[in-house]
């Protein structure tokens, strides 16, 4: 289960980074949103994976779930939403101001110029 969780977080992070590196603002927003989910899962799993218990007093026979990472992640999830909303608005505004949704605010690069070099 631990290997699955670790691999899952890694794959989500990789996908998120790839999306963040795209040219269009929407991909970046999507990537950041995915990245926060991955980060939240990562922090949460620092409390270790323990099915069948709970973070509520009194503890059961199997002990309790670590409440500290949960509390940290809970606010992080909500803040993540605030951030996604803000970046989405930024993307909309960028398009309105510059007429393009390219993240650099400039649409066309000269023909034949490699995408990733300046």
């Amino acid at each position, binding site marked *: *289960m*631990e290997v*699955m969780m*670790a*691999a899952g*977080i*890694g*794959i*989500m*992070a*990789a*996908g998120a*980074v790839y*999306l963040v590196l*795209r*040219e*269009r603002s*929407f991909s970046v927003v*999507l990537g950041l*949103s*995915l990245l926060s*989910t991955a980060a*939240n*899962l990562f922090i*949460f*799993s620092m*409390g*270790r994976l323990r*099915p069948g*218990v*709970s*973070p*509520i*007093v009194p503890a059961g026979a199997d002990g*309790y*779930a*670590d*409440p*500290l990472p*949960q509390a940290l*992640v*809970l*606010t992080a*999830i909500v803040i993540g939403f*605030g*951030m996604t*909303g*803000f970046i*989405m*608005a930024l993307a*909309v505004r960028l*398009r309105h101001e510059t007429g393009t*949704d390219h993240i*650099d605010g*400039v*649409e066309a690069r000269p023909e034949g110029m*490699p*995408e*990733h070099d*300046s």
Partner: protein
Amino acid sequence: MTLLIIILLPFFAGAVGTLIAQRRGFSAAAWAAAAPVAVSLALLAGEMPEILTGEQIIVSRPWLPQLGLNLSFRLDGLTLLFGLLILGIGLLVILYARYYLSPEDRIGRLYALLMLFMTAMLGIVFSENALLLVMFWELTSLSSFLLIGFWTHSPLARQGARMAFAVTGGGGLALLGGLLLVGNIAGSFEFSDWFAAREAIRDHPHFNVALGLILLGAFTKSAQFPFHFWLPAAMAAPTPVSAYLHSATMVKAGVFLLARLYPLLGGNLVFEYVTTTVGLTTMVFGAYVAMFRHDLKGLLAYSTISHLGLIMFLLGLDTPMSSLAAVFHVGNHATFKASLFMAAGIIDHECGTRDMRRLGGLWRQMPQTAVLAIVAASAMAGVPLFNGFLSKEMFFAEALDLHGIPLLENIAPAAVTLGSMFSVAYSVRFIHDVFFDEPHELPHRPHKPPRYMKIPAEVLAVVCIAVGVLPGHTVAPLVDVAARAVVEDTLPFYRITLWHGFSLPLVMSVVALAGGSVIYWLLRNRYDVHLHVPVRYTGRLLFQHAYDGVIAAAGRLTNRLQNGSLQRYLAFAAAAFIGLGLWPFMQHGVHAGDRTPMPAAPFGFAVWGLAMLGALGAVWNHRDRIVAAILAGMTGLAASIAFAYFSAPDLSLTQLAIEVVTTLVLLMGLTLLPQSSRAESTSGGKARDAVIAIMVGAGVALLSWTVLSRSQETISWYFWENSVPGGGGHNVVNVLLVDFRGFDTFGEITVLGIAALCTWMLMEGLRGGRPSITPALSGNRLIFAAAARVLLAFALVVALHLFLRGHDLPGGGFVAGLIAALAIMMQYMGSGLRAMLARIRIDFWRWIGGGVLVAGLTGLASVLAGLPFLTSATRHPLVPLLGEVPLASAMAFDLGVFMAVLGTTLLTLTALGEARGKPTSAEEDGRWKS
């Protein structure tokens, strides 16, 4: 306490008072500034009898004891001398500035800055703690910067201010480094501890580095060669500022520092050699250059540099009498130089120029000013009967008495005589060129200066003569205790007298006076000094070159790194993270821990597959944007299930609600953006990004796995044990949020509110006008609207239920706020924005503000009860019918969280939902469909 009042009164009473009083005119502003200074001076004078008996007062209060920073102050002879100079000359400068400034100048600002400087300077001389001293030291640099640049419209003033700040501020950093080193060696930052441990400190291998840094700080502040160039540039300041900061007080801070640290540094060979050499060089160099300056203030600036060099030289020497001469000359120089600056300001004020090539023959128009200037210049030149003569004689005697410093002991007597000859020459030039040379055409006809403008200079001139004639009856006791504070009471028997027989120092004085007069005569009649053009290769130009070079290099570096491509920045950032993350892995390798892994459940595979399908699908389909958004949402849902499975019900609920609103945000935003992206990445670019992404992913996965395979050491037992007795709640996650880490949560809802307000502001000008729903869907909408209305009541009840039980069971303000927001959003989607707003009636930002306010007030309530911010209280009152009800003040805090989250969510969603984008010509949505 008295010491603290003496230090703080000028700024806290003077600066505020003068800014208020300036509306009633210049005089009111001057009175408001002067009164607190006079009080401080009186308080200091009240301590004087005790200090003159050789006592010293040290008071200390902890401020940031972890850093070794204490509010420690010391009042001894040295502090007394400097304190009297700062406050006494400060009072005179306030009076002088009242008449110096023109009506269009903002006098309140000048006074307020002077008061700030005064407090900072007093702070330096009263500090007993090294870190405290550095704080005040930098504050003097800052106030000096603001005062030099007082006339902000003048480019010279701005340049001078920058230069002074760069040099003295940079020196301040060096000083901080040096003092930190000494503090680390000594284990304390109190000067008395340093002096007690002087042997250990001086034997430490780092001592010479610390000494070098401290000297760098002192030399830059006191304008020693080769850091002197900022001082002439600082003459762009109003003359009262030059008189006060840049001759009488601030530039003495470097000298003061070495005097204060003398018990630690004195007698050290490196200190002695460096300080005497630098001081002597500066003394001769400054005096030489001063002869060729045409600007009165320029002449005085170089003269100040020269005299500071003289004092530095004396302080470096390892004899008690040299320290006495040094502190004596500090006082003498402050009086005659301040009065000369004031005279220069009066001349400038009345004639419209300070250029000695244009001035001349002013003896007839302003005889009183001429007398003042002659008195002060005589003191500067070291003429008998004036105070400068006495300290200069002592200086000569010390220069003759150098033993054990190779080279210097042979050069010094000749060098000091030469420097003094130059000093006489520029003093004669100052008087002769201005008052006696043939008159020239002036910008405007000179008239008599205002009566009160001359008084400060007159007072100082009287002091020059009184000290010069009757040293034993005036300053001798003060100078004595000041010197004793420096050398720790090891002064031999001595007397400061005007006449002590024919001696070699007297011969040197006579030679200097005669030689200086001859030099001036030669300069005037043979060389024609008025035609002298200053050399171009100056420290100032070097500084300017270096400054421009640094700016240009920074610009080039910025242009290289910041080429405007966000992709490039993000790739750099990701690559940097890979590098930082790789390093420890390379060092230690990757090893599995000892924790027994859990077997994978079939259910787990299903959820994992869902998450991966979402994440990879979103990447694969990222150009088809709606599909990508929905696939990414799937990952969020899978995360919610994972939270539930791994015993985090609160997280699961929150993640579920957030996933819904996030998808809403993405879809709303998407209506204002192209629905798809065209294929534009080159395959090389894709490959590069894929490599970066896979490396980041692999790193994160490895890190997660190494942690997950190890057993845990956690501090959570504390929260677990104290949740019920301390926080009054059984749901530890909720108690953590609203109680243990309540301050954190308070900050977070504030940030959340700010983010939502920013989102809303970004949509400024794009609001309104968008049809809330496509007309073609209006049939479906009716059913949806009706269903939403029914659901609203249920959803709100669920939200209330989750909120109320949150302290003991999964739920709480965050989840409840999100669910209430979702219920309201359904009304929006069903009936449109206007119908929804009509029902809510309260603006969303009021919800946010109200929520933060409620949370904050809950925290403050405990402050009123004398407990720290956000201490929670629990009660279990008996309520009729309901029985015992658990009530915690954290509930009120959670209410604030609820309101803020509700407002934030709704404001973000409606901001994006309301916005309308206009189609632009640059791209058309359809064209990009691949």
